[in-house]
């Protein structure tokens, strides 16, 4: 794992948390969207805060796809769950929301999970070429009369 790759993982966590945050704030400005009139769901993107949220979520998706191109899914998902921690810290220190003891415990569990997974390898090594050849040989032996 290089510094650049850790930066991509941080990008996944940061843009997911801030994108969700912008969309949540924008939806509060827009108000309820009726399920009976679905045109409203498309018009919400005209709200600048929601548009910014969508832009951030697009960057999140690009970072997520980049991470999945060189790391296992079972590494990327727990490693980037640090976004929940970021979101709670934003809620506490920027939005001055009340964060309960249970939520701090939740943050502790997530942080422990992130710590656990990032200590291990990011990618499952591919099976050795020899075994592929052996499988190929045994297959051809079965197919050929």
């Amino acid at each position, binding site marked *: 794992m290089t510094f*650049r790759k850790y930066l991509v993982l941080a990008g996944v966590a940061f843009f997911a948390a801030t994108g969700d945050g912008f969309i949540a704030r924008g939806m509060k400005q827009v108000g309820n969207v009726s*399920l009976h009139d679905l045109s409203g769901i498309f018009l919400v993107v005209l709200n600048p805060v929601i548009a910014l949220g969508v832009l951030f979520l697009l960057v999140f998706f690009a970072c*997520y*796809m*980049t991470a*999945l*191109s*060189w790391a*296992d*899914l*079972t*590494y*990327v*998902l*727990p490693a980037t*769950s640090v976004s*929940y921690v970021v979101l*709670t810290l934003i809620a506490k220190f920027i939005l001055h929301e009340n964060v*309960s003891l*249970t*939520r701090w*415990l*939740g*943050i*502790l*569990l*997530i*942080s*422990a*999970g*992130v710590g*656990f*997974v990032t*200590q*291990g390898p990011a990618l*499952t*090594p591919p099976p050795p070429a020899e075994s592929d050849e052996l499988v190929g040989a045994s297959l051809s032996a079965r197919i050929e009369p």
Partner: protein
Amino acid sequence: MKSLYTWGAIAVIVLTSTAGDVLLSRGMKQVGDVGALRRRIGLWAVLARVLKNPNFLIGVLCMATAFYSLLFGLSWGDLSLVVPASTSLTFITNAVAARIFLHERVDQRRWVAALLVAGGVVLLAV
């Protein structure tokens, strides 16, 4: 009846987002290391390669289905049930699916991490 609908929606969210994650991961592994590819063939060629990958496209479709199922789930059930239940269950189903379909080495460390994060997500929503 309403709780049956809610848990039905949660089941659909978990299944489609797990399928989406697995397909996206498989598609991106087929494309290859995006950073190295971009230096070799350029950004637009990488983008074209990603957008032409069938696993990627079906994965995006699954993710869109998961998103709309979430909207329906939220209209039937409470936010404090639907979001933490579907998110934490998805962490666990992803670990199982990645082991079966992607042949990832999900060792004890990764299991513990998935369970800790799933538990943490539930506590955040309490």
